């Protein structure tokens, strides 16, 4: 036990880059579909790779379009925004609507 502590205390071994990634970035980097993907160039991030013109020319149509963020937002690992509670409309009777409440609607 003490040997282990001594060996690691104050020492920072090379941290693997993926350990520093956010959940979102990590999950986006997973090749979920199992298809061969074009490696992102160093000039861009995993989430938004930037390719130079020459690199673009080497991509297939499929690879090119796969890299587009079509909806302007990443689709994997994005924190789910809580849905806004639908505004109470006249369409849904409230749970506590009684016969007397109902009667009042008929002038």
């Amino acid at each position, binding site marked *: 036990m003490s040997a282990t502590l001594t060996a690691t205390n104050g020492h920072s071994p090379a941290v693997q880059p993926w350990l520093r990634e956010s959940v979102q970035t990590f999950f986006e980097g997973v090749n979920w579909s199992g298809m061969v993907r074009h490696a992102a160039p160093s000039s861009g991030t995993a989430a938004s790779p930037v390719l130079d013109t020459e690199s673009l020319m080497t991509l297939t149509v499929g690879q090119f379009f796969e890299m587009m963020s079509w909806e302007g937002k990443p689709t994997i690992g994005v924190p789910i925004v809580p849905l806004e509670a639908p505004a109470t409309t*006249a369409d849904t*009777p409230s749970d506590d*609507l009684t*016969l007397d409440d109902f*009667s009042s*609607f*008929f002038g």
Partner: protein
Amino acid sequence: MVMTPETVHRRHQKSPKKHNHYALKDFFQFNPDHGTITDWNDTRNVLTSEDFIIGLLEGLQEEVGDASAAIMYTVGLEWGKFDSLQFERWFEKEFSMSPRRANLMFLLETWWWPFISQGWGRWEVDMSDRKQGFMFINLFDSAVARTLGDVGKPVCHLYAGLFAGFFTEMVRKQLSCIEIQCYSMGETYCKFLLGGRERIDAAAFWMNEGANARDIEKRLRAGEGGA
């Protein structure tokens, strides 16, 4: 109606608080010695064939012509008023609660369940326009319409009267009802409009002018047809 001990529903007596009693063997009690059928709420039931429905409606049509629609509506109206009183009694007994304090949708579903068991069809209540003072009822498998088939006009006047009578008593306001779409017009289900008399008269007028259910809904939602 006076109930004799022989025709009182025995299963109901045994389990007065049982709510899921709408299966055939639970809901109906056949009294072979008396030649009667009693339902869970001690009401006498009569089994009829489609021939009976056709005979009733066509016979009436032959006797009184177009007034047969008004007669069937009036029959339904009286039935609905009477049934609302019966319903209030058994609802209170079964749920130990006044119908006026119950949740509305629960109350309405509870009212209609016996009708489903008796073969009058399933329904769906559309309350989305209640604040404007009207509502729609969709009826699936109308016993009348499915019997008569496609005759090109609404035929479920009995149901329209039933809804008008029941809601008039329950809401304690004079309400009317009209069928604005019918299985017998080639539609997939029947649709009823319930509301004040002025509105229903307006809907009847629009229908005579050739409006369909969608047109009527649109006009009502636009505020036409009076309050």
